[in-house]
């Protein structure tokens, strides 16, 4: 697996897209900090960008890389290597190279502006870890979609739709159903829906660390009770791990059955 990972990773690291992605985050980091000159505000704005953008980039890259590396995959399939190893290796190649672009791209500007000397270091790390998780999750889901669809255009369409669903449509549906059922107790529902969408889960975890006071407003009590405790903290990270593992396992399952 290490070998497959190594080749995918070095292949991606040479592709200009990785550099564009890295450059984008670096630029974003510097611009945010230059405009705000305030680490904590920079981090709040960054959160908005990260929870939307890392899943999108992960989705697009996952599908794109999978279709582009079909030849590579087929070449490997005839070799004495396990299928799951081929796909896991490539998956780690994409995910880790993307996560590294994110971490290096944002890390440099925040380092320059002295994040280590401020109290924001933990919030910043939380943000990077959440961004990393989202990358791993969405690359896995999009590779699954690509495995399902031999047709590139279709696969790409479904993948974008999937991202759109988690990033926007899901929240729209949640908002709508909450307003329709406003007369019923919604606390548990609110907690449940935020667990069933990795983007929402990461957003809330970061929010609770960043501008907690508003969330504590009304329903906040529930959220504080839950996320504020060790149990909630462990549960939410565990949920992100589950969100990563399930699509990865699914990916391996589909890959093992697929004809090339």
């Amino acid at each position, binding site marked *: 697996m290490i070998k497959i990972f190594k080749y995918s990773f070095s292949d991606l690291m040479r592709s200009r897209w990785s550099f564009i992605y890295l450059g984008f985050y670096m630029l974003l980091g510097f611009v945010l900090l230059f405009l705000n000159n305030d680490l904590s505000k920079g981090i709040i704005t960054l959160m908005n960008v990260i*929870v*939307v953008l890392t899943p999108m980039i992960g989705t697009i890259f996952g599908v794109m890389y999978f279709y582009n590396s079909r030849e590579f995959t087929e070449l490997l399939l005839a070799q004495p290597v396990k299928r799951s190893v081929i796909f896991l290796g490539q998956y780690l190649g994409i995910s880790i190279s993307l996560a590294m672009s994110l971490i290096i791209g944002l890390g440099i500007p925040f380092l320059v502006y002295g994040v280590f000397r401020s109290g924001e270091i933990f919030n910043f790390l939380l943000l990077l870890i959440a961004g990393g998780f989202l990358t791993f999750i969405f690359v896995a889901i999009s590779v699954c979609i690509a495995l399902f669809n031999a047709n590139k255009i279709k696969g790409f369409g479904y993948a974008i739709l999937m991202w759109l669903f988690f990033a926007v449509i899901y929240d729209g549906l*949640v908002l709508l159903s909450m*307003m329709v059922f*406003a007369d019923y107790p919604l606390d548990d529902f609110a907690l449940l829906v935020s667990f069933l969408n990795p983007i*929402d889960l990461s957003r809330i975890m970061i*929010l609770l660390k960043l*501008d907690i006071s508003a969330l504590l407003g009304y*329903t906040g009590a529930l959220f504080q009770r839950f996320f504020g405790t060790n149990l909630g903290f462990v549960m939410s990270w565990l949920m992100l791990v589950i969100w990563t593992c399930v699509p990865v396992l699914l990916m391996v399952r589909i890959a093992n059955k697929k004809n090339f």
Partner: protein
Amino acid sequence: MRAERKVCQDCEYSNPVQAVKEALPGDTILVAAGSYKCPGLEITKPLVLIGELGATLDGDNQNYVLRLLADSIVISGFSIINSGKSYTKDFAAIYAHGTSGVQILYNHIDNSFFGILVEKSNGGVIRGNTVSGTARQENQAGNGVHLWHCNHMQIENNEVFGMRDGIYLEFVDESDAIKNYTHHNVRYGLHFMFSNHDAYIDNTFESNGAGVAVMFSKWIRMENNRFINNWGTASYGLLLKEIYDGEVLNNLFEQNTLGIYVDGSSRVNYKGNTLRQNGWAIKVSGGCYTNAFTSNNFIGNSFDISYNSKMNDNTFNGNFWSEYTGYDLDRDGNGDVPYRPVKLFSYIVNRTPETIVLLRSLFVDLINFSEKVSPAFTPDDLVDQTPSMKKFQ
């Protein structure tokens, strides 16, 4: 001839009770260090009681400790502990009734039901006292400084914590609360009811259960106070309920669930305040008319303004909004594009509080944007026409 009477272990008096009893009006009683049991000590003539460092008056957990029932009494420098606790009587460490010109100075009050309770008095001074308790629930304690039907009172430099309300004023007119520090009280840092023509200035209210409540009062000036860290499900920095003709000037509201909760208040000017990192900076509900918000800083709040109706009769001009994204081409210091401080999402959260879980999600940004372009649910005349480009210092 004013006499000075000493109280100590082997002085003329070994107990302040005896000294008070025998003193003549105008006498000064000096109490040396030591603990003196004097539950329900009644003072019915103008005396000056001065406690030396370490002089402790102990109420023995029954009754009031001191009852001041004459004018011009001075109580200074004592440590007063253990008033009685009762659910029917308002036992206090220092109780004053029907007095004029009473001075309560630099006392430390601990483990008492009420701290300082003053009724039907005028012209008194309450300065430099510390009232502390260990209350966790509202019924475990009374208020730190409690005034009822008073006027021309000065409440200065007191510190109150661990009580029910820090300072409670009911039917108190023409009085000032200055430089007090109330924190970690179970209910309000300052509680104000049916009191007119008062001012509170330079106070700090921090981490109290529900912040500061000012209700049913007129002509109140609130200036240079700091409202910090009042977090909780129903917590706020400042509640103004049924307040008319007030002034809220140069205050700081930081990290409160709600910065200012305005309910049914009219003709109040808000100027030079800084509202930073609150959940809601200002929440307006009920009929609020001709309030003016000018030259305030709104910085990093989750919501700047929240309205529960589409009607607006208040003005928001010339404030600094950290979320403002406009530009200033004519360089007059004001943005050229008006700013709409009310978001559609804050309207939704008002109606269905649980939707707060969607705070800062992309979908919410999208609906906020569309509402900004064409307001349908939020007051369309609620705009800052001249948003400041620079933060007010």
